[in-house]
């Protein structure tokens, strides 16, 4: 996937649920104009299939992929990865696992 001169980027993710969590760092090749969604897909597909996160429309409309990026609420699909970052689940909702939250109680967007 990556050659020696591909720049790498560190994605640190808060894993676990509301009871128990830890931070885990993944190093991935940085592609030009890749979104956080692309980064999560890469991790899930090729590094760690146990990583849980939600994704659907990929174009910033369903708002299901909201995560907290370095403490700020952002959509994973429309936010571009430009350097190392820390991702945490959307704190407005109960955590199912990792970045996947249960949005059942709040249907409004």
């Amino acid at each position, binding site marked *: 996937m990556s050659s020696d001169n591909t720049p790498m980027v560190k994605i640190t993710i808060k894993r676990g649920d509301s009871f128990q969590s830890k931070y885990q760092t993944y190093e991935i090749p940085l592609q030009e104009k890749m*979104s956080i969604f692309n980064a999560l897909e890469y991790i899930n597909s090729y590094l760690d299939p146990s990583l849980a996160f*939600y994704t659907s429309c990929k174009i910033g*409309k*369903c708002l299901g992929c909201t995560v907290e990026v370095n403490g700020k609420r952002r959509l994973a699909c429309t936010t*571009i990865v430009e350097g190392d970052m820390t991702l945490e689940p959307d704190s407005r909702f109960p955590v199912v*696992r990792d970045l996947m939250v*249960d949005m*059942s109680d709040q249907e409004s967007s």
Partner: protein
Amino acid sequence: MDSKYTIETYKTDVVIVGSEGAGATAAIELAKHNLDVIIVTKGNGVGRSGATITGEADLAVDSNSLYHRFNMKVGTDPEDSKENFFHDILAGGKYVNQQDIVQAHVEDAPDRFADLLEWGLKPLFVTKMSGHSYPRGVIVSAPEMIRIYRKKLKETKTKVLNNIFIHELLYQNGVCSGVFGLNMVSGNFITIEAKAVLLATGGGMRLYPITTAPEELTGDGTAMAFRAVVELMDMEFPMFLPGCFPWPEAVKGVNTPFKLASAGMISGHMLNKHGERFMAKWDPIKMEKSTRDITAVAMWTEIMENRGGPHGGVFVSLKHLPDNVIDYIMEWLPPSYLKKYGGFDMSKFLPDLKRDAVESVPASHFFNGGIKIDIWCRTNMSGLYAAGEVTAGLHGANRLSGNAFTDMIVWGHRAAQAIAEDIKKGEIYQTPLDKKQVEYYVTEALAGYSQQGDEKMQSVRDDVQDTAWKHAGIVRDDSLLKEGLDKLQNLKERYKRIRLTCNEKKYNKEFIRYLETKNMIANLECILVAAENRHESRGSHYRKDFPNTDNIKWFKNQVIIFKDGEVELKLEDPVVTTEEPDRIIEKYGY
């Protein structure tokens, strides 16, 4: 996942699989009939899955009704009629549409549009879209529609279960008794017993690696129906939108290049790597403004014959225009046209268009085929209904712009009417679940944890998409399709050797995707088999080795039935009520 598992059980009158346009419309109508309804959605809430929210979006209603009944005097044309709309749908679908279904569609469209207006929808404007001879495209906001559906579902107290992936039908002796699937959040299996099951699961666009559609649209409805020996039809006609970014990764599948060249507002040129405007070979009059099916075939041919660009697309250029014209275009174009797409600020992804071209590739956009239904959304299995994109019959070989939205509101409603009526008359009722079938589905689903083998789920899934793209894509021929069928056999074997590695119960994406991949393989098989057998080109099915539209031999629909592990094709005549094509062989294209 270990061998211990839990099954969550529900019982209701009607279960609707899918919570968006078609499913929500059906639930709102069913609420009038005093029936227990459960919607199950793959999404994390209504509006968080499916293609409805991604629509840009025009909703097609005949212009005469817009003018007279809805008093929309701007941009409409009272000369239009339902008959004209009917005719355009057939012409667009290359006449293999079911005319009784098209008839019902054009009749009901204004009534369903009236419902949406009553529920608070505010149409933005009306425009003439490609393939329509009159302005029928009512531009509506998809997020606005979602807000309306959420509000109505709340008002009607419809029970919605989120994050549920239904992937099998429960049935006995040809009668549907419910659905089986996975509660992705708890990790438990789920059965829902019901008198009626309505599939409103959308298309299977995610079978292809480049798509305009959301991630979870893996053809679940068609696949589970196929396995349950429900008839499918027109599966050779998946449609591609000719003009999406192949790159960069974040905006792969976004249709800005289409808007630069083909959509109508701007006259971009499409070029191959030699700088040739290749559309001249396919449609020298309309060029880039040709219909979407022909443009997709033309682009694909350039790409596959190695005349594309470094990122796998062709080029779209505005450089033939003077700089000040480009500046002025950017001034008068609404910002939503080029500079925004969904939540993207597209200016970050567009080069200086005075200098550079962008690359563009056709992307999987819609499934014209699916479950065969009658004019009341009934399938060949008693108790099973289907509505919206998961069905076949309305669009024939190619869908008209705006008819995806009209499809879901008209047919979601018709399904609900039929279900209420059939339950009331006692024609369908609760039949017992086959416990052995439930056990079988559990064992099948968990096979990835116990079977022998060392295949990785992701590698099989990647290869399924790759095979779909190369062998069941836009341009087909005998050797490509036969090779595709060989690869399919291999993929089916490899699927049985997948060894899952993630044992998490809650939202286990590897397990979810393992189940989805099975559905993708089923869809791929249907497309390959139907495409291999259709020895002609029509609409979104193009064969290099049979480049003509043959209305002597192929004015037919292909019905797919799964029997004893094999796919069987049955040729049927389209239902004709008024119009027939000339029984001649015509050149595909202009």
